[in-house]
Structure formats: structure tokens, C-alpha cells
């Protein structure tokens, strides 16, 4: 394990806490944070490159300089430059996505309980102390990515959370394997799925409680984790303190936050968040034609490969005859990254990029390459990730009504002078 990373993360957390304490003091007088106070905290704003993409950069409880998409329930995006700074996304910059408006603002570690019940012989009600000390702890680096990351780039546009590319992050998660919790509860024969619920709820009683389910086999695979640590420290409240589910390689809709209930089901879960929401076309690339009818829809599931250039942007310039370093991040989705290919000529010629330190198959991995531009004019750089299953990024964007699973080959056009 890379301890250097942990120390860096802890340092940045301390910094953010200090900043937070300062901010908290300012808020104490008023009790709540008003929009004007948020505005006063805003260092600047950003224009995401799609229609109606103006956003403010704000501070939020335990969050510093993040892109504000929605205040309540919070949708906060990681500014893209953060992905150039580290392969692990600092907790105070990590994206935030809540569905329901009533989110606990106080968690007492002594009274919090995690229930494990349903189709089990021995229902459990575990304290945090038990979870920390009675089970073997595991550590895993994994990308947490919103199903609708990059939705703002969909064409034609679709309604939803209009994210740029920053509704994703990579963290070192610490916790206990879900299978050990389920083993202690002693799952009964006939169980088919495991359902997860958190402490958030709706403002009106008709709002369906946010619940997500995995198949029993998936829940028992030894990789799905109940995490209490994120980058070496406890989770920020808005990332799900004190416990969140970690489902490596799957979209974050399954990574239930403030997890307090694990329920073993003997029937397939039919709740709104599995049956109606977060559905994708059961087609290659989860793609369909706008307006297409009668497309078979299934619950979203595993992630697909993606890669990004992080040190170049569309307004950038490079110099002819000078060696140019290009770098970025990539991940394989639900399988480890095999290669990252780079093109400096708009996709005509590709060459393998050099891969950085391997933090495990579910993590971001840095890549870099250098080339020397030989002619003036616009230069379109592209990057393409392929995973060990041979799955690669498509040259044309997918489209679906939910705005899910975008993973088209990314490109950046700079000017060579």
C-alpha cells in the first residue's frame, strides 16, 4: 500500500477541516447558509462546454472549491483540473450526488447502527465499533462514477443532472467485505438479492425511499465492501459518513451512502429505484436512437472504460519542434485497464501511452506520452482506453434517454504554433 498517498490525503483533509472550521464560525451566527453567503464564498465560476453550462465554484460543508450544480439535495462536481493533480481524488473535492432532500446533518458514532436482516437466520444490529473491530478490514482503490457523468455532453440533450466530466472520483476505500457481514447474519436458502438503504429520505411521504439491490452472488463476491474509510480517513458527511457501500466497477448509484440497512431478499427487488429509475437500453453501449420506441430496458450495472487528457484543454497552444508532454487518467470500468492509446492527429495514428503506477484494477491509472508536433495549425489529440476483456471506447458517442454511460473517445484540440 502506498502510504505516501495516505499522508498527503490526510494533510489535505486537515487543511479542509481548518477551512471548514473558519467557515463554520461564520455560519454559526446565522444558523443556516444563505445563497448570498454561498455566493460570497464563491471564488469564481466556470462555463462547462455545453448549453446552460455556467456554474459557480463554491465551498460546501467539508467541500472546497467544487462546482455547484444543485444546492438541495446537493449535486457538487469535481473541477476537472483536480484529475491532473493526483490519481486519488481528495475528499474535499470529491463529487457529491444525493437524490432525496432530507439528509441527516448529525451522525453520532456511538448510537449509529447498521441492521442486517431479511431472509437471514440471525438478524444483526451492528455498532460502528463492532464493524471496525470484529471483522477483517480490507482496502481497495476504486473509481466511483455517477451513472450520468458527462450527461451535459449528450446530443440531443436529455434532462437530469447536467454534469460535465467531473461526476467521478477515485479513492482508497477501507472497510469490511460485505460477504463477512452476510455470513454472520447467516443467509437462508432461497435468497436472491441483497438490498441497501441509507438514512436519507424524501420531504413528502410519497417519495420512494432510496434503495438499491445487487444479486446475492454479486453481494457475496468478496469485493463489494461496506466502507468506513475514504483516502485514509472517515468519509465526509456528503459522501456517506459513517458507512457507504462500495461496488467496485459498478456505477455509484449502487454505492448507497449513510448505509444503515442491508436486507436480504427472497424475491427480486421491485422498488422504484430498481424498476423505474436508472434504466439503460439493453443494447451494445447502452445506446439507442433518439425517439426509438419499445427498447428493452434493464437496470444500469457495470462501468465501461474511459480515459481523459488532463493537462491540455481546447484553448491551449503547443510549439512546433518542441517536445510536448501529454498526460491524463484512465480506468477500465469493471475490469482492469490493459492499455491506453494516444493519437496526436485526430485518430489516424495511435500509439500506446506509458502507464503509471498500478493501484489495482478498479482505480484510476495515470498515463503519459510525449510527442513533437511537426506542423503548424490545429492538433486534435485523442485518448482511448481498453480493458483486459478487450472492451474499448467507441469513436461515436452513445445516446439514451437517461443520459447514462457516456464513454466516447475524448478529444482535445490545441493550436500548434
Amino acid at each position, binding site marked *: 500500500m502506498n502510504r505516501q498517498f495516505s499522508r498527503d490525503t490526510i494533510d489535505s483533509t486537515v487543511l479542509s477541516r481548518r477551512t471548514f472550521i473558519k467557515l463554520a464560525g461564520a455560519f454559526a451566527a446565522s444558523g443556516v447558509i444563505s445563497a448570498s453567503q454561498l455566493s460570497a464564498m464563491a471564488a469564481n465560476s466556470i462555463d462547462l462546454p455545453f448549453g446552460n453550462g455556467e456554474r459557480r465554484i463554491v465551498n460546501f460543508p467539508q467541500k472546497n472549491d467544487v462546482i455547484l450544480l444543485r444546492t438541495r439535495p446537493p449535486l457538487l462536481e469535481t473541477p476537472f483540473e483536480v484529475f491532473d493533480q493526483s490519481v486519488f481524488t481528495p475528499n474535499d473535492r470529491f463529487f457529491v450526488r444525493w437524490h432525496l432532500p432530507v439528509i441527516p446533518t448529525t451522525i453520532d*458514532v456511538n448510537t449509529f447502527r447498521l441492521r442486517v436482516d431479511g431472509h437471514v437466520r440471525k438478524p444483526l444490529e451492528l455498532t460502528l465499533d463492532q464493524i471496525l473491530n470484529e471483522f*477483517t478490514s480490507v*482496502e481497495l482503490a476504486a473509481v466511483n462514477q455517477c451513472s450520468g457523468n458527462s450527461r451535459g455532453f449528450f446530443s440531443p440533450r436529455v434532462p437530469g443532472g447536467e454534469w460535465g466530466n467531473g461526476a467521478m472520483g477515485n479513492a482508497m476505500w477501507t472497510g469490511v467485505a460485505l460477504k463477512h457481514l452476510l455470513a454472520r447474519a447467516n443467509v437462508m436458502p432461497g435468497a436472491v438479492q441483497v438490498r441497501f438503504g441509507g438514512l436519507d429520505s424524501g420531504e413528502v411521504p410519497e417519495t420512494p425511499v432510496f434503495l438499491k439491490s445487487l444479486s446475492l452472488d454479486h453481494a457475496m463476491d468478496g469485493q463489494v465492501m461496506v466502507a468506513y474509510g475514504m483516502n485514509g480517513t472517515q468519509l465526509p458527511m456528503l459522501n456517506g459518513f459513517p458507512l457507504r457501500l462500495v461496488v467496485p466497477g459498478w456505477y455509484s448509484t449502487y454505492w448507497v451512502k449513510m448505509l444503515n440497512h442491508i436486507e436480504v431478499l427472497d424475491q427480486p427487488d421491485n422498488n422504484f429505484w430498481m424498476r423505474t429509475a436508472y434504466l439503460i437500453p439493453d443494447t451494445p453501449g447502452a445506446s439507442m436512437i433518439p425517439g426509438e420506441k419499445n427498447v428493452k430496458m434493464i437496470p444500469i450495472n457495470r462501468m465501461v472504460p474511459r480515459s481523459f487528457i488532463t493537462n491540455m484543454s481546447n484553448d491551449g497552444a503547443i510549439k512546433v519542434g518542441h517536445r510536448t508532454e501529454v498526460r491524463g487518467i484512465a480506468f477500465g470500468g469493471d475490469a482492469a485497464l490493459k492499455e491506453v492509446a494516444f493519437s496526436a492527429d485526430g485518430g489516424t495514428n495511435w500509439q500506446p501511452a506509458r502507464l503509471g503506477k498500478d493501484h489495482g484494477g478498479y482505480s484510476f491509472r495515470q498515463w503519459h506520452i510525449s510527442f513533437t508536433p511537426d506542423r503548424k495549425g490545429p492538433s486534435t489529440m485523442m485518448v482511448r482506453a481498453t480493458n483486459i476483456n478487450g472492451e474499448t471506447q467507441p469513436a461515436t458517442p452513445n445516446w439514451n434517454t437517461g443520459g447514462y454511460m457516456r464513454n466516447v473517445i475524448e478529444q482535445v484540440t490545441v493550436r500548434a504554433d
Partner: protein
Amino acid sequence: MRELPSLRRSTVLLIVAAIVLCIPPANALSKRAPGPVIKLTSQTITLPFGDRTFEGDRWAKVANTRCLLCHSKGMIDKQPPLSPDAWKKEILKMRSAYGCPLRDDQIDGLVNFISQVNK
């Protein structure tokens, strides 16, 4: 209470002090070795409510009391340009799926208002 002759008073105090120091603070839990040590401490935050509202006629009031009941204004005004039909689909979904308290005779007026303010 019978005093133990073999322990001097200062030794007893030291032992008591050691025991007290070993008790974790009331609002913190930590993991025993092995593995990464993560300390869990009770947390309290104050979340902003999002106090921007719609301005205008009675439909602004409907939007402020119904739409903004469950989410802040950013949910609406950060959307891409949507047709009135697309807005109607969203608004009906808010009622049928999430329980937004809207009457039938409020739907078209609200669709019209949201479509206008969010062009």
C-alpha cells in the same frame, strides 16, 4: 473500603490515570490493529437550503411551493433548453413518481411558466 497494603497511594493514582487515558473520547471510535487505522468521530454539518426563488405571477408561487418543496431552483434552471412537452413529462414524473402535490388543473399553467423562465 479496605486499603491494599501492597500498593502505595501514588501507584493507585497512576493506575487509575492509565485506565482513564485508555478510554476513548466519547465521540470517537478507532480501529484496533491490524490494518489501516481509521478513526471515526461524530460529525455535524449545516447544509445550505438554497434560497433562490421564482419571481412573477401566481405560477411562480406554485413553482416555489411545489417544485422547491423538495429541491432547490438549480434543479430547474440548470436544465438544458427543453420543450413544453419535455417539461410536462418531467413535471408529471415529479407528481407520479416522487409525490409532488400538484392538482390536475395546475399542470399546464406550471408547464407554461417553467418553459418560459427556463428558455
